[in-house]
Structure formats: C-alpha cells, structure tokens
C-alpha cells in the first residue's frame, strides 16, 4: 500500500464518518460506495470494512450514552435477539451472493435510505408513549431542555419485526440499520427520538459483530484497508456528532438524499 492510498483511506473514512454522523446514518452508507468506487475494492471486502467501522463508531458512542442513561438497555437487548438472528442470516447470504449482485442490492438500499431521509423529516413524532401505557419504562435527562423525559414502549413485536429486517440488511450490506430502526422505534413504539437514536447506536455494534466473524472467516477482512478506514470513520463520527448539534436542517437531508441517489445510480451502472 502506498502512502497516498493510506492517507486517502483515513481521509475518506473521516469524510464518510462525518457525513454519516451528521445525518444519523453511521458511516457504512457512505464508506462502502467510497471503497468500491474510489478504491475498486471487491464488494465483500468493502462490506467487511464497513462492518468494522460500524462496530468502532457504535462502541465509541454507546459507552457515553449508557452512562447518560439515554439507552433503553432492556428494549435494546430484547430487539437484539431479532437483529442478531437477522444479521447472521444476512452475513451468510452475502457470502453466497456474487459481488455484482450485492452491489446492485446496495444501490437499491441507497435509494431506500435517501427516500427515508426525506420521509423521516416530516413524520417523526414529538409525543412519546406515556408511562404505564407500554413496557420497558425508562426516563432520561434531556440535556437540551434540562427536563427529565419519561416514556414507555408500545407495540414491541412490530419493532422486533423491523429490527429483524434491519439486522438482515446490516449483515448483508454492512450498514448499521439505524435508518430503519430509529423511525420504527419513534413512530411505532412512541420512543423519544434521542432515546431511540441512542438505543439504536448501542444495538448496531452488537448487530454488526453478529456478522463480522462470518466475513472474517471468509477472508474478506483486509487489515491494511480496514484499520485506516475504521479509524478514519471513528474520527469522522466525533466530528459529525459535533456538527450535528449545531446544524439542524431539512435542506441538509435533501442535499444528501440527492447525493445518495447519484451514488446509487453510479453503483448500479458500475
């Protein structure tokens, strides 16, 4: 590996991690296309690298959120039963599919994600399920308002169904799956957005680990690519979270939705 490639990988990781964290998507959605389109990496290797990046960003954020008690651990662990099953089957499926098929499926996922990014800006619920109306009651202190937010979780089986699909997509394509889980937790179960995001962030690392060893065992993990890229995404995610606290804009979602559509088309006709 040349010094140029090395720095490009770290730089690319930082940029994709920043964008991912700014939009609450995680780095995988941008990292995989970057590795495939810029580095011409085989799709399986790109997915394996992305899974590593998802674990790194989740591990960094989860500890902080658990400490602040924003993560609903009981809900997360319950949903994890479904996501882990989905991720294992996703990982196994990915390793029997060709890189070309995976690239096409990934480009379709990007189209879905861009649609979801626009859709969620209009449909997120500000009202949470009150205590006693659901299960897994929890509360956390909202740092922005200083208020203690109490809520419970409704319609758990539905969210478990979404989590199973999200886990499957995670194992198959190396993305976190938060783009599907967070809206489901918020809109179906009435979980406040901050708690849903923190719980999802806690979960995605565990979900990614469920398929990581499958890719490792198939020899798709290239340490010379995965190490700098994962470190770059990790650094980028810290930057992205800081920027995200300052910038709140629907226009940002629109811009990146269009960018993702273009990347999707580029990958589809690669």
């Amino acid at each position, binding site marked *: 590996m040349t010094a140029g490639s090395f720095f490009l990988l770290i730089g690319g990781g930082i940029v994709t991690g920043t964008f991912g964290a700014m939009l609450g998507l995680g780095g995988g959605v941008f990292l995989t296309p970057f590795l495939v389109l810029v580095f011409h990496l085989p799709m399986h290797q790109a997915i394996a690298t992305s899974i590593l990046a998802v674990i790194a960003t989740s591990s960094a954020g989860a500890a902080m959120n658990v400490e602040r008690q924003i993560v609903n651990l009981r809900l997360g662990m319950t949903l994890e039963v479904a996501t882990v099953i989905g991720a294992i089957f996703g990982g196994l499926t990915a390793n029997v599919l060709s890189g070309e098929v995976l690239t096409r499926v990934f480009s379709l996922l990007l189209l879905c994600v861009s649609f979801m990014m626009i859709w969620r800006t209009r449909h997120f619920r500000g009202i949470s399920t009150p205590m006693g109306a659901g299960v897994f009651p929890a509360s956390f202190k909202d740092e922005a308002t200083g208020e203690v937010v109490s809520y419970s979780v409704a319609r758990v089986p539905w969210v478990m169904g979404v989590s199973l699909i999200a886990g499957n997509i995670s194992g198959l394509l190396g993305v976190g799956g938060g783009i599907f889980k967070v809206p489901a937790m918020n809109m179906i179960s009435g979980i406040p957005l901050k708690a849903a995001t923190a719980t999802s962030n806690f979960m995605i690392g565990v979900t990614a680990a469920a398929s990581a060893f499958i890719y490792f065992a198939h020899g798709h993990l290239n*340490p010379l690519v995965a190490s700098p890229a994962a470190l770059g995404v990790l650094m980028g995610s810290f930057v992205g979270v800081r920027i995200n606290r300052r910038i709140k804009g629907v226009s940002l979602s629109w811009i990146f939705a269009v960018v993702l559509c273009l990347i999707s088309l580029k990958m589809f006709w690669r």
Partner: protein
Amino acid sequence: MVLGLALAWFSSGTLRLPNENPRPIAVLHSLLSGSLDPVMVMFAGLLFLMLTPFLRVLTAAVGFAVEKDRTFVVVALIVFAMLLAELVLSLQ
C-alpha cells in the same frame, strides 16, 4: 490497530498479507511469541474491536444480574450465546 499501522509504516520490508485471514489463535500465538508482525498486530486490533460488542452484552447481563432482573439476564445471555455460536461456527 494504531500500533499495527505505525509498525507497518516504519517497517522497512514490504507488507505481505496472508492468503486467508489467520485464525484468532494464530494471531494470539504470534503476539505472545513476541513477534511484532504489523499485519498480525493489525489483525489483533481488528479482532479486539470485533469482540467489544460481546463484552458490551456481557456487561449488560452483569448489570441486570446486579439489579436482580432475571428475565433480562436470560435475554442478554441468549444474545451472547447467539454471538458466541456465530463466532465458533464461523471460525471452524
């Protein structure tokens, strides 16, 4: 990973990747033997990273046990068992 990258950066020879990913035991053996092979050190970093979610689930199980919440101790252990099964079956 950082150490592995640093070693790779300063190593005078060319880096050779193994034909297939080494078994975790081989990585551990390489490290314990004192050889600072940059690729093996990077693999060790990656494996450690991949194992952190396992620790997270175990920590949650311990937390539930401290709170005497048996139901969620069982749920956490089910998740851990599935992760462990995937790990063992993948590496066989």
